[in-house]
């Protein structure tokens, strides 16, 4: 209950000058559209004036109908910050107001409005030395992929200083985003990739089939003694459960950063 200790998560100092700068809406042009799964697509966007971003940040996308009606959604950035372009991966929600337009209607050369980058806490930078444990549920892999991509281009010294484990829970192999690229990244001995497929598996699947549980987190993750940086992203249920289990295993709660998707409630 000490006041000072309670301020522990205020990790960034923001100068009054930085606070004044508004995150402006920008017009982005779709330069590539990549099918990740039957229900998810990556849009590669050229954003003139993009100020750069950190792995883990997101953008807000705004659609405007002919009658002026506007809808906004937040999407995590999938690409590493070294590019002048921004990639977002969108999962198509069947009753969605925005995602079906982005995944089905939008074509290369089309334009859309976005602003960002947004968010200063669920981020990883190469200067965050130490083991990295990434826990993804479904489309929650997107910002974690940005972290792996950032790491991959950051140089051998960074990779050696920040060995990374991705535990990725998906319904089926067909629901796994970035399969080929992840396999490529995992050729690096400092990257460990563990899938669990909770609903259906390809023939001969030897990997895990359980939902993320304590035994799985203990088996894949760096031990609490190694004080890994932990990022958990996915549906609320998975994030709640995985983060509690990690605390139960002895990980420092302040090293666990979470991002919850999905059913909105109080």
């Amino acid at each position, binding site marked *: 209950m000490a006041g000072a200790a309670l301020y522990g*998560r205020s*990790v960034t100092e923001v100068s009054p000058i930085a606070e004044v700068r508004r995150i402006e809406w920008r017009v982005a042009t779709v330069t590539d559209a990549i099918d990740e799964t039957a229900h998810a697509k990556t849009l590669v966007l050229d954003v003139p004036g993009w100020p750069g971003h950190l792995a883990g940040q997101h953008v807000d996308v705004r659609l405007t109908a002919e009658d002026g009606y506007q809808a906004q959604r937040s999407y995590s950035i999938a690409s590493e910050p070294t590019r002048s372009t921004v990639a977002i991966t969108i999962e198509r929600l069947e009753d969605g107001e925005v995602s079906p337009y982005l995944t089905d209607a939008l074509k290369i050369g089309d334009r859309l409005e976005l602003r960002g980058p*947004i968010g200063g*806490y669920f981020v990883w930078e190469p200067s965050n030395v130490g083991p990295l444990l990434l826990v993804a549920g479904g489309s929650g892999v997107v910002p974690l992929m940005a972290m792996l991509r950032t790491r991959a281009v950051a140089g051998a010294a960074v990779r050696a200083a920040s060995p990374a484990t991705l535990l990725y829970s998906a319904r089926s192999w067909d629901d796994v985003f970035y399969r080929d690229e992840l396999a490529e990244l995992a050729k690096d001995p400092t990257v460990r990739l563990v899938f669990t497929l909770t609903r259906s598996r390809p023939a001969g699947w030897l990997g895990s089939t359980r939902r993320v549980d304590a035994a799985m987190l203990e088996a894949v993750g760096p031990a609490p003694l190694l004080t890994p940086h932990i990022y958990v992203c996915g549906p609320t249920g998975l994030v709640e459960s995985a983060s509690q289990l990690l605390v139960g295993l002895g990980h420092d709660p302040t090293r666990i*950063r979470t991002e919850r998707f999905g059913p909105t409630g*109080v």
Partner: protein
Amino acid sequence: MLSAGPTPYTPLAAWDFTLRGVDGSSAPWTWDELMALPRETITKDIHCVTKWSKLDTVWEGVSIDTLIAEAAKRGVETAPFIVAFSDGGYTTNMPLADVTGGKAWVAFGYDGKPLHPEHGGPARLLVPHLYFWKSAKWVRGIQFTADNEPGFWEVNGYHDRGDPWREQRYTGDP
């Protein structure tokens, strides 16, 4: 939902809520003491920065006005700004005027039931006229401050005031 880390689970026996003055004075309440204060049922629309609103939500809680009046009897004076602090290390800042005059509560009931930890229980701040990250989950107290001191979300890119009617979502929004 806007949460940055694992949900804290603080046992009620170890829980308290404290108003702290600029001069270091403090007025704490145990859980039982808070429950003994006059409570109100609050029916309000709430607005999350992640684009959803929920209409006519029903809460139960103790008004910040009540707490301030009680704390004054114990020598804790208000100041022009506040920082609410929570288990897990979260903080959020507001002008005093945003939490007084029947505009804010320490809420421990939602929809007729105790507030679940995933939704900020045992108690969260309830400031329905601002974006919902200002309604700090797992709240443990309020520090009065002479100056505006940006909190956890506010230093991490969210707007200093967070008025949903002006769509003040992010740092720098007018």
